[in-house]
């Protein structure tokens, strides 16, 4: 797999504040979600990957080009969709995309032709001659995506692409992002919305306080509890919990009478039924426990906070 970017002990300070605390990670092509709470360093990391920052220390390579000296080359190969609006309202969508293409080095004729094609692709074919100031929020998001795609980048950074969209517009945007990835363009999606990452990405990179706290496949993050079940008994939950504990299961109370049961290895759901039968408790509800990305994210975040005193002083956190 092609390596999209590789960071080695990248550190960035803004005055006394350390925004990136020695990031070390190697990310391959694909669909990557960049997650983290406010102030985690997501935007700084994107700026760093665009070659716009001078690091205090460390080395960075993006698409095979070292930063910051290869910054211009990297930006030519990358598309960036900023979070906030960044357009002159008097420009039409075609003018805007043509301009973006020409700034990337496309000849004027090519840029003009590609602007039309890209705007059709994102669903703005009918509106391409309208002034951007007249666009709805959803249309603005799409035109920002179009300007990021016009020059055929290998990698696109999408910063909060579904911000301000209604549910239908959001689904369309996520569908579009998935389609972009299917066309061989790697996607790095920076967002607060974990649902968006679940719908589009196959891997997630979690940042907190300028440190990478996790990088890996989303399925690995959510599937590590596939031997778990949510169980509710008609009555006698305590009795059932005690019986299951006695047989080697781990029990967590989840919202009142609901039990979250982790079975011993090699066991299956019959283990719970057998225990219930033996202690005379009737089971009313039992489903495999599907951990959401949100839960996984919060767990990892909490774990990192617990470990924080050991790692806060900097240095590489995650070696992938």
């Amino acid at each position, binding site marked *: 797999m092609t390596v999209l970017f590789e960071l080695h002990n990248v550190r960035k300070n803004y005055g006394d504040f350390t925004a990136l605390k020695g990031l070390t990670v190697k990310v391959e092509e694909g669909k990557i979600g960049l997650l983290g709470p406010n102030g985690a360093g997501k935007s700084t990391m994107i700026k760093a990957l665009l070659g716009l920052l001078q690091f205090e220390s460390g080395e960075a390579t993006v698409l095979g080009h070292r930063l910051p000296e290869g910054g211009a080359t990297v930006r030519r190969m990358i598309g960036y969709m*900023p979070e906030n*609006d960044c357009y002159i309202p008097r420009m039409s969508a075609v003018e805007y995309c043509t*301009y973006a293409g020409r*700034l990337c*080095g496309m000849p004027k004729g090519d840029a003009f032709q*590609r602007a039309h094609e890209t705007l*059709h692709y*994102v669903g703005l074919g009918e509106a391409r001659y309208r002034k951007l100031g007249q666009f709805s929020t959803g249309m603005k998001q799409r035109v920002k995506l179009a300007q990021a795609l016009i*020059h055929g980048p290998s990698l696109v950074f999408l910063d909060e692409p579904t911000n301000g969209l209604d549910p239908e517009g959001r689904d369309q945007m996520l569908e579009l992002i998935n389609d972009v990835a299917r066309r061989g*363009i790697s996607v790095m999606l920076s967002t607060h919305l974990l649902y968006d990452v679940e719908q589009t990405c196959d891997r997630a990179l979690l940042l907190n306080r300028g440190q990478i706290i996790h990088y890996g496949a989303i399925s690995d993050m959510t599937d590590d509890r596939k031997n778990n079940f949510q169980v509710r008994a008609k009555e006698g939950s305590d009795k059932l919990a005690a019986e299951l504990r006695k047989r080697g299961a781990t029990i967590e109370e989840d919202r009142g009478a609901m039990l979250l049961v982790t079975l011993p290895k090699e066991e299956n759901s019959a283990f719970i039924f057998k225990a219930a039968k033996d202690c005379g408790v009737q089971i009313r509800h039992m489903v495999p426990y599907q951990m959401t990305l949100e839960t996984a994210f919060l767990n990892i975040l909490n774990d990192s906070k617990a470990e924080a005193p050991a790692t806060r002083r900097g240095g590489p956190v995650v070696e992938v």
Partner: protein
Amino acid sequence: MAIRDQGYTRYEGDLTAGSPTWWVVASNGFSLQWAYVRSKLLLFPILFVFLLFVFATFGERVLTNYFMSGQPAAQPDEISGFYEFAFGYVQIWILALYFTASGCGVIAEDLRFKTIQLYFSKPITKTDYIVGKFMSLVMFGGLVTVLPTILVGGIRMMIFAPSESFGSVALKVGGVVAYDIVLLCLFSLIVMALSALTSRTGYVVLAWAGFMLIPSLVSTIVDLVRKGEEWPELLSVAGTMGLALQSLVDFKGIPQPGQLAPAPPPDYMMWAPWLIIVALGSAAVGVLYWRTSKLEGIA
């Protein structure tokens, strides 16, 4: 139209075959300024002013022929340069007005609409951006300075072509073109510097208008108090540019009442305007440098 029903494929063309980035910024900036209706509307009264100068050339030539009929042809040194001085001096205020109407948002709009983020996520350097914006203003301002000078000056040279004054006229027209270039560069730099300081175009307009008008007012008041002295001219941008223009078109000035020829100006009046022009230009470049140095990682 449904999303992605157009058989979209990635662009595989050469990304180094396009125009230089500064030129892309310049041409787009020019288009945006020209797109204002007021930019086009304002050209009509401005062109009318220049048309008056064309008529004045005809009038000057007719009168010269009338008074000189039967006498030897006018000598080259009889062209005083007043015409070129007046033409160039009017351009100061025309350019100031044109920039007030449409040029003040050159960088402020990028800050306000955050398009500056778009620029710097592309393979563009700060130098490309600044040079591009500067050239956009120069091209835009050239519509009311260099272009009319070439047109009106060309007509004037054609009218004077049969006379022995042609060489003198051509030199003075060339002087006005050189002056236009200095004027354009200086005003473009100052407008850019003011525009880089705020995201509100209205504030830039106020600052630019104040920069032009207040020193001119002060200069006029001081000039009235200190009658006969020339240094108050240096207090205003218009006065300074006027003095620079005088030296470029070799205009000695208008004689005072009771004098046959204008009094020669003091020596410092020859170099002081140029020093002020260089100082103002350098200050503007300094402001732009300071502002762009704060643009690290703006994406």
